Structure formats: structure tokens, C-alpha cells
């Protein structure tokens, strides 16, 4: 290799797998790229872009089908072991041995990498301090929270200074606080040890920290360059507009995002709507869309450039967002009925002597989108399961759709729809078969069942004969929602509905929810994408089983003291940190 300034050099790289239905699928389809030494290089792209496959080839555990790949000057297809002796790799799901303690996991990897005892002492001390795991060295890795596991995984990959650090979505499924910590550690190592890092991510704010960014989609590199250079693509197209006083931002956002010929992308944010307009958008049409509202220009961000690239690439296969009219007429109730449909009072759930949810109270009103947010282990899922009647409460009062869940769970269930986090439909059945089965399970028969199945199929634009398991993530999501709406529930529960689907599918998901809610349905959603809180009427932030903040996104931001236009991410971090600091003080007083 002549180019000593590069860690990874790929040219016309290709990797083909057997796709659904036996068709070959090029996960990496002719990628050429160069990652420079001593820098952070980011691969960004939605799920299925080929990031993981590319990184696995770099790590020498997948052999390229075509093209050349040199890592640290070594041919990856010929001598993978020589590469593996010099790099450190953290797969998306880092293989921690859950029955070994934190210390034992670290020792194992240090031994495997041949780290000397003297070196180890210094290194472990630093890693444990950085990851804040020093208190837990004797705890089995399986008993750490999700964020802590991820930090331990990173520590295990960093038991020595590798010539190249390969990280595959290190922050996926990690709460904002742990995510911030992870990146602090990375930045520190790059600054102090001039580490070369190649990292894949779905978060734009993480890509923003890297020297070079490759935007990937469906096995190809759509664009590359510094974050600054990429951002320029959206220059002059980015605006922000505030909705009229009495309408939620998401309604305006829905109107904008539907107008695909004038608007590339729109998201609610900080009570307003941020959008990107089409470069050739007709100004009259824009003005009509905005209905007299005055937009302001805003600085372009990497996210904007990314969304533009995806939309351009997707234009030809663009699928229209599922239409609003998903329920029959009888459900078009008045919006914002003040009567709460969910009443939670002093809800408690204990597992043994562990309190997962501690005296939690809130109401959800009819026609509202209510968001439950919190870091891993905050008690979101437990709260959620109790609301759906899947888990009995240890104490407190719980009323859903006017029914006391402690006495009449089955009755309440008939009024609610539930979309679980994992795809819980039958992968080897077709769309129609799945819908017919679930319709039957909800007690629909004969003509009524037929009519409902047909209705949701059309409304969610699903192919009746498609095999469910072979559909892309976004479509599975739609099918799951379609199934949960068959019996026309009043309340829809969605557990992490947007994890693992790409940004475009996420936009379209929220568009559907907005439409449903306009039709009178109440939606309760958990999410770890903080920016998605902006779609909600009200949110509750949970940590360690307690509700820390409750209110509209604006009220929560006020409570956080981060200012009106701050993003939800920083508001969230501020609130959790304030609460934890208070907890520490209280603990200290108790100890004294």
C-alpha cells in the first residue's frame, strides 16, 4: 500500500446475500471509499444501507464477493487474521459474557489481545473511570443496564490502543445520557491517542462530530465529505414556521409533508415546524400551503442534507403515506374531549424488592398523543404493560377507557389496540392471513371481518399476498398497526414503534398516527427518539421508576430550563440529571 495516510481503502466492493424469497440481495453494492488515519470516519444511513456488512468486511469476518478491500494496508480477503491482530471491533450487539463480571470480561479481552499486566493496570483504571463502571466491577455483565452494557462493550474493545477502531452503531438503543458519555470517551481517545475510528450511526448529531461522513443507502454511497460540505447541499432551503396558536405543530407538519412537490421534509420541533423546501418549489404554492404563516430561514444541518439525499434517492419508489381515514365514521369523535380515557393514580409495580415503577400518576385525554420517554430501565415498558393489562399492578388505581383494569381486564382489552416492540405477527403467513387471524382473535366474523381486513389493507397500502416476514421494516410496522386497528379500538398502545425503521418510514409512521388521532383515536407511545416527543400532545419523562416531568413538550422544556427552541434531547438530559443530582443530595443527607 502506497497510501499510508489511509486505514481503510475499498474499491468497487460488493457483497451479496440470499434475500427474501431466495433472490440475491446486494447488501454492499459497489462501494469505494477511503478512511483516513487519525480521524473519525462516519457511515450514516438508514437500516439496510449496508453499514454493518461493510464494517464486518473491514473486520475480516465477511469475505467480499467482488472488489478490493485493504485495511491498514493488508488485503482483507487474503489475510483477515493479520488485520484482526491489529484492530478492535465492536459489533452492534457486543458479545459480553453475561455470566462473567465486568472485571472478568475486561480481563478476558485484555488476555486475548496480549495486554501486559503493567499496561493493564493503568488502562483499566482509566477505562473504568471514563465509563463510570468502577463501582460495578464485580457485577455480572448481564445485570447491567443497556447503556452500561454498551459502555462495557466499548471498554472491552479499548483494552489496548488499536491501529483502527471499528464501531458498528455503538449508540443504538442507548439512552441520551449514555450516548453522550460514549461519545465523550471516543472524542477523548481520538484527541489524546490519535486513534483512527470508523463508526456507523443512525444519529446525525454523531456524524456531525466526525471528520468525514459517508452517506449510505441500499448498499451504495450517496454522498461523502466533511459534515460542512454535506450541509451545504441544503443551503438556502431550510426554514422554520410556527403554527397558529390553537393548532398543534404536528397538524401543520402533516400538511407540509404531504405536499411532496413543494416540501422535501418537515418535522415538528420546539413547538414549530422545521421544513426543507424543494429547490424548484413554486413560491405561490408554498405561500398557499403555509396559509399566511410567516416562515423564517434557519441554518442548514446535516440532518437536512441527509433527508434530502434519501428523498432524492427514494423519489422513484416513493409510496404515499397511508391515508388518514383509517377508521369508519362512527369514531370521528370530538377532539380534545376533556374527559380522560386513561387514569393512572399512584401506580406501583414491584418485582421482589425491586421497585420498577414507583407511585406514578397521570391522565391521558381522548384524542391525545401521549408519549412515555425515559432511559433504559426507567420503567417505561413496565408502565406500558400495566396500561395494556399485560401485567398486574402491585398497587394504585388504573382505569382505561372507563374500565378499572384491576377488575375487568378483558373488557378493557376489547377497547384497546396494542403494537408490540418486536414484530409479533406470523412471519410465514401472508398479510391477509395475518389480518384474518388477528381479526378473528378480536371476535370479528364473516362479512364484518372481511370488510375490516379489506379496509385496513387499502388504507395501509399493503399487498394482501405478500409474505409478512419478507417485507421491509417499514411495511412490517404498517402491518402491525393495521392488525391492531382491526377491531376499531379507542386507544392505541405503541411500544417503541419506530426503533429499527428508517427515517422515511418513521416520518410516514407519524403521519399515520397524526391522521388516526385526528379521527378520534387516543395514542400512547413509548420511544427512545427524543425528537419524536414533538409529535406528542403531552409527554411523561421517567427515570428509575419515577415520573420526573409531565406536560406538553413546551412545559417540559420550561421545566428543564433549556429554553424554548432547545431540542428535546438536551431537555431530557437536563431533567434526568437534575433529578439524579437531587437524588444524590438526598442520599448524602440520609447517610449523614
Amino acid at each position: 500500500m502506497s497510501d499510508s495516510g489511509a486505514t481503510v481503502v475499498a474499491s468497487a466492493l460488493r457483497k451479496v446475500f440470499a434475500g427474501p424469497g431466495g433472490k440475491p440481495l446486494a447488501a454492499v453494492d459497489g462501494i469505494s471509499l477511503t478512511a483516513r488515519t487519525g480521524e473519525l470516519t462516519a457511515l450514516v444511513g438508514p437500516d439496510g444501507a449496508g453499514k454493518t456488512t461493510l464494517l464486518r468486511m473491514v473486520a475480516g469476518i465477511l469475505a467480499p464477493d467482488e472488489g478490493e478491500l485493504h485495511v491498514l494496508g493488508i488485503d482483507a480477503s487474503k489475510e483477515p487474521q493479520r488485520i484482526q491482530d491489529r484492530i478492535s471491533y465492536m459489533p452492534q450487539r457486543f458479545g459480553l459474557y453475561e455470566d462473567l463480571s465486568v472485571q472478568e470480561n475486561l480481563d478476558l479481552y485484555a488476555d486475548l489481545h496480549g495486554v501486559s499486566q503493567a499496561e493493564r493496570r493503568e488502562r483499566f483504571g482509566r477505562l473504568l473511570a471514563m465509563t463510570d463502571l468502577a463501582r460495578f466491577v464485580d457485577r455480572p455483565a448481564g445485570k447491567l443496564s443497556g447503556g452500561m452494557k454498551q459502555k462495557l462493550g466499548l471498554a472491552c474493545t479499548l483494552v489496548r490502543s488499536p491501529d483502527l477502531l471499528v464501531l458498528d452503531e455503538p449508540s443504538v438503543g442507548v439512552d441520551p445520557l449514555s450516548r453522550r458519555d460514549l461519545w465523550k470517551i471516543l472524542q477523548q481517545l481520538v484527541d489524546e491517542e490519535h486513534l483512527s475510528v470508523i463508526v456507523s450511526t443512525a444519529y446525525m448529531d454523531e456524524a456531525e462530530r466526525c471528520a468525514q461522513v459517508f452517506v449510505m443507502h441500499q448498499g451504495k454511497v450517496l454522498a461523502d465529505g466533511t459534515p460542512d460540505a454535506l450541509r451545504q447541499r441544503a443551503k438556502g432551503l431550510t426554514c422554520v414556521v410556527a403554527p397558529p396558536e390553537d393548532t398543534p405543530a404536528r397538524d401543520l407538519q402533516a400538511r407540509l409533508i404531504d405536499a411532496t412537490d413543494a416540501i422535501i421534509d418537515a418535522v415538528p420541533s420546539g413547538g414549530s415546524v422545521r421544513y426543507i423546501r424543494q429547490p424548484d418549489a413554486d413560491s405561490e404554492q408554498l405561500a398557499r400551503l403555509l396559509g399566511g404563516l410567516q416562515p423564517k430561514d434557519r441554518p442548514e444541518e446535516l440532518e437536512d442534507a441527509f433527508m434530502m439525499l434519501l428523498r432524492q434517492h427514494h423519489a422513484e419508489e416513493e409510496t404515499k403515506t397511508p391515508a388518514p381515514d383509517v377508521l369508519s365514521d362512527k369514531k370521528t369523535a370530538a377532539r380534545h374531549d376533556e374527559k380522560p380515557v386513561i387514569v393512572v393514580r399512584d401506580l406501583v409495580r414491584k418485582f421482589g424488592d425491586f421497585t420498577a415503577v414507583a407511585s406514578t400518576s397521570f391522565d391521558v385525554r381522548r384524542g391525545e398523543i401521549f408519549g412515555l420517554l425515559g432511559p433504559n430501565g426507567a420503567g417505561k415498558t413496565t408502565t406500558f404493560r400495566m396500561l395494556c393489562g399485560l401485567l398486574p399492578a402491585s398497587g394504585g388505581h388504573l382505569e382505561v377507557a372507563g374500565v378499572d383494569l384491576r377488575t375487568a381486564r378483558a373488557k378493557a382489552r376489547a377497547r384497546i389496540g396494542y403494537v408490540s416492540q418486536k414484530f409479533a405477527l406470523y412471519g410465514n403467513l401472508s398479510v391477509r392471513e395475518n389480518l384474518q387471524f388477528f381479526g378473528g382473535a378480536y371476535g370479528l366474523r364473516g362479512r364484518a371481518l372481511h370488510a375490516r381486513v379489506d379496509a385496513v389493507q387499502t388504507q395501509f397500502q399493503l399487498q394482501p399476498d405478500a409474505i409478512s416476514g419478507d417485507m421491509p421494516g417499514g411495511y412490517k410496522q404498517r402491518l402491525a398497526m393495521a392488525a391492531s386497528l382491526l377491531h376499531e379500538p379507542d386507544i392505541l398502545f405503541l411500544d417503541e414503534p419506530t426503533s429499527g425503521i428508517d427515517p422515511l418510514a418513521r416520518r410516514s409512521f407519524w403521519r399515520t398516527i397524526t391522521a388516526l388521532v385526528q379521527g378520534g383515536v387516543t395514542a400512547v407511545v413509548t420511544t427512545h427518539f427524543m425528537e419524536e416527543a414533538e409529535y406528542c400532545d403531552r409527554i411523561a419523562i421517567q427515570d428509575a421508576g419515577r415520573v420526573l416531568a409531565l406536560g406538553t413538550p413546551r412545559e417540559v422544556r420550561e421545566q428543564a430550563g433549556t429554553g424554548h427552541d432547545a431540542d428535546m434531547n438536551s431537555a431530557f438530559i437536563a431533567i434526568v440529571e437534575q433529578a439524579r443530582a437531587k437524588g444524590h443530595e438526598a442520599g448524602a443527607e440520609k447517610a449523614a
Partner: protein
Amino acid sequence: MSRSGFMQRMVALTRKEVRQMLRDRSNLAVGLLLPIALILLFGYGLSLDVEHSPVAVVMDDTSPAAREVFAAFQGTPYIDPTWAPDMQQAQRRMLAGELDAIVRIPSDFSQHVANGDAKVQLLLNGVDSTTATSVEGYVGGALATQALKMADRAGGKAGGGGVVVQQRMWFNEAGISTWYLVPGLLVLIMTLTGAFLTSLLIAREWERGTLESLFVTPVRPLELVLSKLIPYVVIGLIDMTLCLIAARWLFEVPIRGSLTVIVLASFLYLVVSLSMGLFISGVTRNQFQASQMALLTSFMPAMMLSGFVFDLRNVPAVIRGIGEVLPATHFMNLIKTLFLAGDNAAIVLRECGILALYATVLIVAARRTLRKTLDR
């Protein structure tokens, strides 16, 4: 990589495997408690011996000679003779499943005894053919002894030119089934603990994603295989010791061959069995499938086709061929020979050679499944 690197990694990996093994209770239960349960179950519960077999004797002749025959049956612990007044009654009892056999002494028995050509009729209950065969042997034996006595008394005067067969069973003089079942049990236990325990090891690491992280380290595939074998070899050796103790002191099976050879042969088979499990584990990459496969391809055939209970020479050629391919069959032959017949250099060398070959092939195969790639 230097040699010290190899040692350091081996120690680290082995320590990891030992810790995981000790912290997984269910694993230890399968490894240590299940063998004990099997020893007791098979040792006491599975016996092919027949004792106190109910036999009806229909006496159409009531002469002293005929009564002596009845008395002869009473003298053996294997048969419980009962007197039946007539054939109809005896047949009814046979139909009701109360009898293993009917012995009918014809009315002209004493006359023929005098002539030296007496006959008795033996009707066997063939519902359980193993028992029927045993009973046939016992009845025949009792009659032969009786005939000998009578011939003695007659002093050859009755011309008694009959040839008398005197049988002796070598190696298992009393024909006690635990004698050949318990050595076979050693084979079964080694197979079960070996293949079943290790079948989960690699699959578990695939499922939990730990292999992907391990692959991108200086670790070599062979190190992964060896480090997984070592802790389970120890468990296997403990099981072997338990089996030998039980064989010697609980079931009082003779150990006629050299103990050293038995231990070495068992060790060899243990490695075969463990590597078989690892290989299955590496191929399936799925714990459920791996454990099913391990049961189907090692434990079940070892039970049915290795000659544990059924003699392989009596089965169709195809089945026999399958049996011959199993390492368990070779170890079964070896261990039964060593326990009951004693050291036989030719058999020991041949079977140990075959087992060593299996061990090598399976370790190489298991190592191949751990080639550091996610490609299938």
C-alpha cells in the same frame, strides 16, 4: 503469533469456559446429576434377567417319575411351577397373561422314561420373546439335569444312549444382564454428557453474538475448540469415575481388563464425544437445533445401534452398517471386552485406533466451523 501468546489466550479462554460452566447450574446438573440418575435407573431398572417365572405344569401322568420332574422345577429360583389340573385351565391362564409357559407331562411319560425316549411338551408365551427364550433355557436345563439323575439311577441299563449337552457361559457365567449393561452404561453416559453438553457451547455464543466480538481478536479457531473441550473433559472424567465405582462396588461387575487401558480408552471416547457435540454446535449455530441434533445423532443411536442391548449381528445389514459407523459401537465393543473378557491387544489396538481417528477428524471439523467468518 508467539507461543506465549497462544498460552496466554488458552489460559484466558479456558478460565472463561470454566467460569461459565460453574455458574450455569443447569449445565452442571446435566453433567453430574444426570449420570448418577442414569446409573441408578439403568443399573436397577433395566434387567433382562428372568426370575420366579410362573410356569404351569399339567400332569397327565402322576407316576413318581413325573412328580420328580415337578420337584426339579421347584429346585430352581428362576421358575415358580404351579400344578394345573388339566390343559384347558392352563391355557386359560396363559391367555390371561398369568403364565410364561406351560409344561405338559404326557400320560405315557413313565413308560417312555423306562425306554429312554421320554418327551414333554413346552408351550411358551411368546408375547415377550426375550423372556420366552430365557424360560425355555431354564426349563430345558432343569429337565436335562433331571434326565441325567434318572439315567444315573438307571445305571445305563435302560440303554440311555442320549447325548447330554453341558453348557457353560464364558465371561458372564451366570448370564447376569447388569454385567453387560453396566459397561454399556459407561458408553451411554460419556455420549450423553459429551455430545449434549458441548452441543450448546458454540451455538450459545452464536446466539448471544459473543463470537463476532471474539473473532476480531488475535484468537485462533483451534484455541476456541480446545478451550471448550478442556473443562468438559474434566466433567467427563468425573462421570467416568462415578461409572467405574458404581460398576465395581454397586453392581459388582468384574473388571477383568487393565484399569489403565479402560481409563485411556474412555478418555479417547470422551474427546470423540465432546468434539462431536462441538461440531454439531458449530454447524447448527442454534442451541435448540443443536441439542436436538445431539440427541438424535449421538445418544439415541448409541442406545439403539451400538450393541448396548441388541446384538448388531442380528440386525439387517443396512442398520448394522450404520451401527458400525458410530464411534459408540466401537467403544461399546471395546469396553465390554475390557470389563468382562479382559485385555485383548488386537481389539484394544484396533478400536483405539478407530477412536483416535474419529477424535482427530471431529476436532478438525469443529475447528472448521469456527473459521473466523460470518459467511456460512
